[in-house]
């Protein structure tokens, strides 16, 4: 049963990407396919990350520990979307202009923050393997708490990239603050009582 649901989750995450890139390559999704793939994967990463952050509170609230089996899966899909978001920007927007890429990461605060978030997500994704997780023991959780900081950074990156709209980032802010407030004790302990 869990395997079936997991397959469905994989399909739900992968199929939009198939549609997206098929449409983008054939120039059939709007006038600027580059902008479209960048926005789609970026917002997708944020959406999936927020869903993955909702898993633990939902499992607790409804006493369904089985939900926790989907946490890693969703986290990895959030990472995949984020990685595609970055690669889309580098490949299609900047068209492999590495110098421009480095300049942009340094000069544009919203891109700096986005790269910071990605730099957090990368080790989280790498250490999600069962073997590594067991080896890391307690420090695994310490490392993975950084996801809260990544989530805030991703929101800042999103908000900063928008010219004037406040409603869409506002809705995401509410969702994020709510999800973080559900674990405020844990976050406080982690941030202030580490030494």
């Amino acid at each position, binding site marked *: 049963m869990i395997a079936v649901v997991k397959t469905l989750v994989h399909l739900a995450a992968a199929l939009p990407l198939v549609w997206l890139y098929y449409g983008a390559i054939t120039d059939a999704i709007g006038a600027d*396919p580059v902008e479209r793939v960048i926005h789609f994967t970026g917002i997708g990463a944020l959406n999936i990350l927020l869903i993955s952050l909702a898993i633990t509170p939902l499992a607790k609230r409804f006493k369904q520990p089985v939900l926790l089996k989907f946490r890693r899966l969703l986290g990895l899909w959030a990472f995949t979307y984020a990685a595609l978001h970055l690669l889309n920007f580098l490949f299609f*927007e900047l068209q492999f202009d590495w110098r421009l890429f480095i300049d942009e990461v340094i*000069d544009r605060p919203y891109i700096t923050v986005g790269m910071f978030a990605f730099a957090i997500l990368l080790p989280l994704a790498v250490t999600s393997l069962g073997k590594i997780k067991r080896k890391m023991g307690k420090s695994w959780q310490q490392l993975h708490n950084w996801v809260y900081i990544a989530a805030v950074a991703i929101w800042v990156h999103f908000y900063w990239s928008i*010219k004037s709209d406040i409603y*869409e980032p506002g809705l995401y802010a509410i969702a994020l603050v709510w999800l973080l407030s559900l674990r405020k004790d844990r976050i406080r302990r982690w941030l202030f009582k580490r030494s």
Partner: protein
Amino acid sequence: MLIKSKKSYQLTENDVTNEQVYVNRRQLLKSMGYIGAGTLLSQSVARSASAAPLDFWGSSDDKAFSQQALNFKKAQPTEELLTPEAKVTSHNNFYEFGLDKSDPARNSQGLRVNPWQLTVSGEVSKPITLDYDDLFKKFPLEERIYRLRCVEAWSMVVPWIGFSLADLIKQAEPTAKAKYVAFETLYDPEQMPGQRSRRIGGGIDYPYVEGLRLDEAMNSLTMLSVGLYGKTLPPQNGAPIRLVVPWKYGFKSIKSIVSIRLVEKMPPTTWNILAPNEYGFYANVNPEVSHPRWSQASERRITTGGLFARNRIATLPFNGYGEEVAHLYKNMDLARYY
């Protein structure tokens, strides 16, 4: 007046085939039902908070604005590849109709452009009111192929049809006090959902206002456009009449104009009010002066081709129109007056 020598800005038309191929393929895809699915997909995720969430199943085709063919003097052929018409009319920043670039084409098709009144007033001896028909008849129309550079670092090449703003201003006889020109977009919240709702319109104070210095307005490049690709403008491109200032970022080229006022003092401009550190009054295309969030050194030219089109090009000072306009800013520090 006959134009004798070909200047750098007098780009010309070519690649009609290219556009045709593009349009045909789009129609083919449409008939296969693909575009519907693609739009649905992008709507569901990419624009969750944008306009018309209930418009999900509606096809934009069933309420298309009707464009009319225009009589005009055609531009000379050009080397530059025109942006396909379908892209020019579906990729628009017109926040009165929504924030997503595909929103204006979807939400503006019902705009009533006839009757229309455009007034020229303020510091002039002979105020003018143009009715809808006057927009197309008062001055001989000519086609001009201009590059359009958006502050977001993408660009297009568009065959506009219209006339020089200078011709209109001269007819109104500006007084000695006239130093600037202030423009205003139609304010009609009933027709423009972005003016009704802060959510759809991005929290901008409407009506949209823009301005030029009088000498910028009188430059022969500065154009009032009433059409593109041989036809009247569709609403998403600023029907029935808009400004085109090709050496400035696109947001200077105000759409659906109802008022042109000649004034003594520098008029307020919408994006400058919103974020003065990001959008100056002049907004000249300048690869040296970055927008805080976008490098302006290069741009992506939107032409044909999908994701893999290699189309990043260097941005030129004054968008390549320096020869015609650089003298307007001779003694100005353009990093300060951006």
